[in-house]
């Protein structure tokens, strides 16, 4: 049962959202429940603390509160429930929502101006949550995590082509199929943690064996499935040829 939390200081809006949520859950048979509908942030945070489960949150952006804004409340919730679903409810159509989405990974926002639109938004959000949870369940891939300060990116290991050391020491560039990350790290540590699926083909490159399409032995280049290339060293040649033979 996924708990749903509401926070809005207007009791009418609160009640209206709650009614809509309960109706939708009943109709669609979602495995969810409205756990709490609170007027203030403290009350809400207390409730979340008690449950300790991944939840869905409908939060008012303009909380009339000294300590919290919708944004900082979102941050506080993220600390307790890093994987919860945040949905913002706002009086204005114009909200710096990209910033919300970007930092808090908020799911969506709903404008409460027009009741019909607001209800439609609520229904859409619930459907999106259900879909996302379904996707996650089916996903059993191994992920590589890059952490830089408060940013955490998970990249499926089988979508990584190779790692490259940058021009400066401790610079690492991750080359992915749909992604590229330039961060600070150590290729040695990467080599150790990634294990056998990755081979140090060159002092500066650590390649994902499964993403290697072919070798250009003459120019000593590894060619990856998407056409990207990197060098390989004399000492890595034997190992690479052996691996390709095994794969073939």
């Amino acid at each position, binding site marked *: 049962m996924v708990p749903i939390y509401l926070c809005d200081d207007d009791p009418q809006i609160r009640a209206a959202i709650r009614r809509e949520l309960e109706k939708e859950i009943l109709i669609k048979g979602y495995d969810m429940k409205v756990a709490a509908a609170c007027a203030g942030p403290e009350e809400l945070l207390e409730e979340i603390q008690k449950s300790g489960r991944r939840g869905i949150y409908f939060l008012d952006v303009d909380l009339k509160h000294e300590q919290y804004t919708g*944004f900082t409340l979102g941050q506080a919730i993220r600390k307790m429930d890093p994987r919860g679903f945040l949905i913002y409810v706002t009086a*204005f*159509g*114009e909200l*710096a*929502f*990209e*910033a919300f989405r*970007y*930092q808090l990974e908020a799911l969506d926002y709903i404008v409460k*101006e*027009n009741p019909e639109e607001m209800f439609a938004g609520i229904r859409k959000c619930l459907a999106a949550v259900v879909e996302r949870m379904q996707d996650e369940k089916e996903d*059993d891939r*191994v*992920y*590589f*995590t*890059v*952490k*830089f*300060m*408060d*940013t955490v*990116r*998970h990249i499926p*290991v089988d979508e990584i082509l190779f790692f490259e050391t*940058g*021009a*400066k*020491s*401790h*610079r690492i560039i991750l*080359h*992915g*199929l*749909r*992604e*590229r*990350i*330039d*961060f*600070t*790290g150590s290729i040695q*540590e*990467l080599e150790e*943690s*990634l294990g056998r699926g990755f081979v140090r083909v060159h002092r500066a490159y650590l390649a994902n064996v499964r993403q290697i399409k072919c070798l250009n032995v003459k120019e000593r280049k590894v060619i*990856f499935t*998407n*056409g*990207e290339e990197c060098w390989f060293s004399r000492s890595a040649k034997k190992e690479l040829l052996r691996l390709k033979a095994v794969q073939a």
Partner: protein
Amino acid sequence: MEFTFISAFLMNVPILLASYLVNLALTGALLYRKPDLQRAAVLLNPYILFVAIPATWLFLQDLVGYFGAFILETYLEVTGWALAMKHIYRVRWGSAFATAALTVFLYGTFQELTGFFLTGNYDLTVPGDLAAYMTGECIGVLIPAVFVVWFIIRSRLFEEYAGFLSEDSGGKTGKILLFLIPAARNLAVEISNEHMVLNNSNPMVSILLLLLIYGVFNYMFRCKMQDRKLEEQKLNLSQQKLYIQNLESVQKEVRLFRHDFKNMMAGASLQARDGNLTAVQEFISEVTGDFEQQVGRQIFQISQIGNVGLTELKGLLILKMTELQKKEIPFRLEVPFPFEHPGIPERELCRAAGILLDNAAEAAELLEDGEVTAVFEEGEEVVRIMIRNPVIEEVPFSRIWKDGYSTKGEGRGTGLTSFQRIVERYENVASFTRQEDGYFIQELKIMKRGGKTYGSHLSL
């Protein structure tokens, strides 16, 4: 007393230790950075060996008085220190050699100051002379060094120096000139001493040369600074113009709206009197919707721009905003909080952000419903910049980073390469580029304070 290789070498050790310290302090002041002391300690021994062995040999061969040997020794020191500081301060090669030449030049000038107290050459085989020489070389040099370090920091010369080093074009000539300065000093001393070896020194000449070089460089810097200020003022003016234009258009819209609003109000009050509540409700949502459409969006963008506290960045954003407006590409800018301390020099930030925005605009132009979204956010510890544009096709990740790649054909698109150079220059910066949910997303994250910032691991 006679010198053997060992005793001469041992004599050089404290001198080089002093030179190492002086170079370390001067470099720290010029770059205005704390050295990596652990590395500095590790590199001390190699540095001493690197410089002392050839120097000792020259000394024992009695070659020290010759100009060639003199130059050789000077550049041995420059090279030694450049190699050491490259690792201690983690700078680029060009900057390392230029800075090393400068500090060695300064160090040499400090050494020469002892010349004021001399009447003739030291005779190092005489214990008294040796003691005086060692005192001057090991302790004497520290006094002017402390003074110069203080001066560099107090008069904020390091700011000018940073500007000098960070220049990409034209900076090369400056660096080469800087590299030649120690040679110039050697030559000046040699010529004015009329090839007579007076402990290889002539303090007056050295000081005059130092002042001359300081004057020339300072003049150059000041000129450049003035240009920059002028540019800034121009930017400010054009910014204000755009700002006012924006406000004027908002005002015009409000006036129009007020006109419509009155008419609509009259209609609505009639309907309210008839008790037609649905019509009144419709009216309310229509009016609020219209207002958002016409005025709200513009007010929103202006208030976002208002949060940017950096003049140059503000200018850049307003410029890009008008460029995109001209191309009729919707641009959404979000700056939810005051954005004032980016964590890297503002110029670099502007260049990086400019490249990302240009890329996004270029890609958006090709799509029918292209748009650009930009978020600038300054948190307590991290600065985040995100630029996003929709894409339909698969982004060719293997090619976009190559020099000269562009959707618009050749000769453009050197952008991402320079962008990468900026990212790599700072250890506290990371960039994330990806294609996700139909968007091309470019992110830049800058950490404002020190500490371990990174980590990576595997997870299921």
